[in-house]
């Protein structure tokens, strides 16, 4: 994993820990942990989405408003990287 991807991942993990209201501690959260199975409610998933948008200065388009996008740290990272790439060079780390 590149340094940029690692930095994004760490930031996502912090945001998930703060906003997803999981029933497990941050030390148990892996990149592939199913956040819904770990206790993230529908309202918490909205909060998570809003927090991610604010932190990464992106807006999730309708096509990305899917359960699978917010299912794990890894899937969120993929979505963030895709949005940053669409924004062009110099958009995020």
């Amino acid at each position, binding site marked *: 994993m590149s340094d940029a991807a690692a930095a994004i991942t760490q930031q996502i993990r912090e945001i998930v820990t703060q906003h997803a209201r999981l029933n497990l501690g941050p030390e148990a959260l892996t990149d592939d942990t199913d956040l819904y199975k770990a206790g993230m409610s*529908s309202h918490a998933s*909205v909060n998570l989405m809003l927090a991610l948008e604010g932190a990464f200065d992106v807006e999730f388009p309708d096509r990305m408003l899917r*359960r699978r996008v917010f299912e794990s740290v890894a899937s969120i990272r993929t979505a963030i990287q895709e949005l940053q790439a669409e924004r062009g060079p110099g958009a995020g780390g």
Partner: protein
Amino acid sequence: MSYPSLPRVLVGTDIVTVSEVAAALERFGARYLSRCYTDAEVATCTSAAGGWDAARLAARFAAKEAVYKVLSPETGWLNPRSVEVVRSSSGVPSLRLTAEAMDRATELGIASWSVSVSHEATFATAVVVAVAPPAGPQAHT
């Protein structure tokens, strides 16, 4: 021996912690409102102090989630704004579905909806009932 088919009754329910909505309002403000509620819903959920009534908003979010559970969209996500809780002049709530919620309800053949909401300081809850055509003839021996 077969009996006439009966309409299907589908039920959804949800409960929301009011403090979570209050925290979202404080943290995200207008962005939270614009993503989750219609303009009409926001207008009916202002508090006497001039801010937003978190309990009433929580009840509406619970209703949206209850509808989601009935519709079970294949995407696993339903735009909250496509489900609107409408309050009549008498205070009786009803549902207005638009866009993807309406599309999914049409796909399922849902002909009518009923909703009931309730809230107090800590929790808000909603129950929705949807009526859909019969699944098919039922045979009994």
